[in-house]
């Protein structure tokens, strides 16, 4: 239990997907001009993350990993399909995003039109695939996977809403023309990353 809690806090603050690993940077920079859309995208990412990472865990452990196929027939025990993991992981994610897209279009049309092209782009948001790949690399068990994906999702949500808030304020300040937009967003993100680095002092 304690272990899970520390994993959760670590995934949000200490090893924040955006600031420590630069995952999901593209949509992070592109959708953070307004708090409202940033909020919507953040929620969608949390949801897709929670759906896909545990699903990929099941796929990895019952279909792909070394000896994972033994439940079908003992003769399959030494089959190792790990090299197929990229293809299956990304298919799961693409399918889940498609489902989420249809659900949002049906139940929240306003949010759907606000997110526009960025909703299907969650498929190629690296933080989602990244969470699955970290899950594989660090050999988490199921409950750890669940907590880790929730934490990573919340970390992304936090980061994108914070940056959107800062950028809304930045519109009232004088930034050199060549640095406006992307340039200043990068530097602000860098400063935020520095601030988040101080969390690494926390021992859990």
């Amino acid at each position, binding site marked *: 239990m304690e272990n899970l809690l520390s994993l959760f806090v670590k995934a949000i603050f200490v090893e924040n997907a955006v*600031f*420590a*690993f*630069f*995952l*999901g*940077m*593209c949509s992070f*920079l*592109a959708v953070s001009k307004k708090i409202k859309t940033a909020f919507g995208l953040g929620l969608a990412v949390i949801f897709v993350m929670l759906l896909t990472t545990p699903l990929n865990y099941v796929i990895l452990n019952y279909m792909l990993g070394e000896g994972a196929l033994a439940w079908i027939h003992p003769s399959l025990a030494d089959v190792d399909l790990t*090299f*197929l993991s*990229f*293809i299956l992981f*990304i*298919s799961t994610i*693409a399918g889940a995003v498609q489902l989420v897209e249809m659900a949002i279009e049906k139940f929240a049309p306003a949010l759907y039109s606000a997110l526009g092209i960025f909703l*299907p*782009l969650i*498929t*190629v*948001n*690296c933080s*989602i*695939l*990244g969470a699955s*790949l*970290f899950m594989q*690399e660090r050999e988490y068990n199921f409950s750890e996977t669940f907590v880790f994906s929730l934490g990573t999702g919340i970390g992304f949500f936090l980061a994108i809403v914070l940056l959107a808030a800062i950028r809304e304020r930045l519109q009232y300040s004088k930034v*050199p*023309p*060549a*640095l*406006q*937009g*992307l*340039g*200043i967003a*990068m*530097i602000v*993100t*860098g*400063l935020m*990353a*520095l601030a988040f*680095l101080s969390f690494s002092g926390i021992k859990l």
Partner: protein
Amino acid sequence: MAEEVAEIKEKKEPLFSKKNLQVLKDPLDDTNPVSVQVLGICSALAVTVQVKPAIIMTLGVLFVSAFSNLIISLLRKGIPGRVRIIVQLIVVATLVTIVDQVLKAFMFDVSKQLAVFVGLIITNCIIMGRLEAFALGQKPWPAFLDGVGNGLGYGLILIAVAVCRELFGAGSILGFQIIPDWAYEHGYVNNGLMVLPPAALFLIGVYIWIQRSRNQKLINVS
């Protein structure tokens, strides 16, 4: 009939015509995927602590972007619009799997260093972006060149940032010591910030600043 054939032959342009060279050259500066189109930033930042992984990563992305562009362009008339994203993802994921297996087989230590970032080439927006914007509507050869150009434009920034970070953060480039010992004896200290993740963000921010002050027409892009 014969006339028609002659006409088609006339229209065929040389392999490195001006237009094709432009396709290859534009992504290096005017339409650079990282600094202008804001694509593929994630991995650009994460693997730049040292020059060597940055070069390997560039080669990986170059390979995947060139060949996925080529394959999608060859298939472009056979892919129904609705399922194109899935087809693109499968092609890209296959190519990335090849890169990953090759790295694991021949350069195991580098592949450990790059960790999940090889897998993340799949979700590198440069590749998806170019497939959507270019390869789906172009002939195979220009599409291939476009992939090479964008891979190079990506690599340009990656290596520029990596050189800065390794030089100031560790005093060496590609593992060879550049800053001489006497400098350390006289009080020079490696810059600890350069090794930390935020340095990459600052360096790319500054790169964009320099690029846009030099090239004024980029200022209003995003």
